[in-house]
């Protein structure tokens, strides 16, 4: 096909009269999806601000009530260390995010652009580990942490998460796609060493993607639940998720209290998401397997 044919079809493609006009049906579906996506957050707030009695009526109330700050103070009564838990979570999440980006980018760079012995084998190996269920290693990991004396320490959350197969693989894809080989070649002809190339050429190019990987690591750490529950024992070391889970065990079913805790532990993420949501969307779509 010549380029002339392509140019002729372009303007027609923009109008695209035949295939798919956007009907009202599509918007209704999207509006419904939006409602369903946001409703649980709204409901969290409704229950937390009304109290369990109010929502145990028929029909239940659907509007925010006046008791939100009462419920919040109950949450803090039940969990005196809740602020500490939030700080712990941010602390662990930030370290993990920065470390993941740094190490994954180095390993990804090596896998994507350097030639060394056993490279293909090691890439395959990384992908293979990604396929393995993480639960398989959890008992030995627990034993290892216990031998290192990291049980009930935030180190137990940080150390195993510094590098993950997913991060390395992701960075490899990104560097492979975004960093042109010619640029690296001309840099090495100019006499730049490998680390210099990595630092002053590769890192700036992949800054955007690194940010997204860092965000995902941060979110994953924030939301991780089971591993912190297993290794953390005393309240001053809890992460937000483990702390909120305590609300469940100490009271039978106080929905207002539980949802209050859930709301407080989720609200920071929602605020973060308002600022970075669009970048995350791009990150997810860039990382997708196409075709």
């Amino acid at each position, binding site marked *: 096909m010549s380029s002339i044919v392509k140019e002729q*079809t372009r303007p027609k493609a*923009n109008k695209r009269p035949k*295939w*798919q*006009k956007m009907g009202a049906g599509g918007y209704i*579906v*999207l509006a419904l*999806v939006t409602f*369903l*996506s*946001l409703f*649980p*957050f709204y*409901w969290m707030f409704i*229950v937390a601000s009304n109290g369990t009695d109010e*929502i145990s*009526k*028929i029909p*239940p109330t659907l509007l925010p009530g006046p008791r939100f700050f009462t419920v919040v103070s109950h949450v803090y009564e039940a969990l005196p260390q809740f602020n500490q838990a939030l700080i712990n979570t941010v602390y662990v999440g930030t370290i993990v995010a920065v470390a993941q980006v740094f*190490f994954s980018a180095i390993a990804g760079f090596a896998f994507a652009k350097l030639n060394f012995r056993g490279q293909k084998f090691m890439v395959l190996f990384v992908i293979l*580990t990604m*396929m*393995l*269920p993480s*639960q*398989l*290693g*959890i*008992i*030995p*990991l*627990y034993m290892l942490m216990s031998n290192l004396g990291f049980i009930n320490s935030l180190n137990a959350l940080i150390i*195993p998460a510094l*590098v*993950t197969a997913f991060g390395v693989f992701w960075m490899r894809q990104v560097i492979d796609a975004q960093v042109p080989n010619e640029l690296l070649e001309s840099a090495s002809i100019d006499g730049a060493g490998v680390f210099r190339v990595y630092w002053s050429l590769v890192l700036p190019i992949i800054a955007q993607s690194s940010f997204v990987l860092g965000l995902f690591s941060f979110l994953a750490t*924030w*939301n991780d*639940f*089971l591993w912190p529950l297993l290794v953390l024992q005393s309240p001053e070391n809890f992460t937000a998720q483990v702390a*909120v*889970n305590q609300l469940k065990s100490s009271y039978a079913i106080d*929905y207002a209290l*539980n*949802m209050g805790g*859930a*709301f407080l*532990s*989720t609200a920071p*993420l929602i605020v973060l*998401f308002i600022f970075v*949501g669009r970048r*995350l*969307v791009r990150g*997810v*779509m*860039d990382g*997708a*397997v*196409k*075709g």
Partner: protein
Amino acid sequence: MFLIFGLAPIIYSVYIAFFNWDALGTQEFIGIQNFIDLVADDRFWNALYNTIDIWLLSTIPMLILSIGLAAILHNPHLRGSTFWRTILLVPNITSVLAIAIVFGQLFGRDFGMVNLVIGALGFDHIDFIQGTTSSHIAIASMIVWRWTGYNALIFLAAMLAIPGELYESASLDGANKWKQFRYVTLPSLRNTITFVLIVGTIGGLQVFAEPLILGGSYNGGDSGQFSTLTLFLFDQAFVAYKWGYAAAVGIMITVIVAIVSFINFVITRRLAGDGK
């Protein structure tokens, strides 16, 4: 680093699966006895059934919904596409804990919203948490809620990569909307569907956080009605402290994931391939 904390535990896990090993210090080589016990263990089969049921109930609707949503978002005439895309990702960033608390309430027997709707339609209330299939539906709905939007974005990215010429020649041949979707879009998505299915299988067969929070303990409901394989593993490892036995469960999970992923792979090839 990665070798020590990622890989070594897995190899070690295979090693201890052949031992009668508990947290108190007993370490006795017993060969494949753990696996023999496992095959005879009703709790294992119950957990396997629950896991596969939840996986089916979540994966199939999720796949259909996310491809459908992606097709809507793929429309070039759509207004506010960035907004819709961003909304789709919201469920995915929430913690499973928070969502399980909300869904646990929504599916509650007496005052849960879901049952109020069911009651309003003239049916009896369903005790979702106590029933087997109904508790699976509650758990599956959390998974669907969490992952549909994310996967829709993955499918959308794949759809945007399909060359527009394919649609033009199809419409010149007189193919309507549905036929274009069936014969152009779906076959082009084959690899993406395989990818989403395999990732979904790995995640779905390891489901534990939702049932753990819903039931509040590792037994997965009063009669184990929503105990899953991974919950069973944790129950054995961190409640009963039978580490060797739990490691054997872990290996079985891995084997099952591999088998199901392979079956998925073959089926998607077949299904999406015949459109060509």
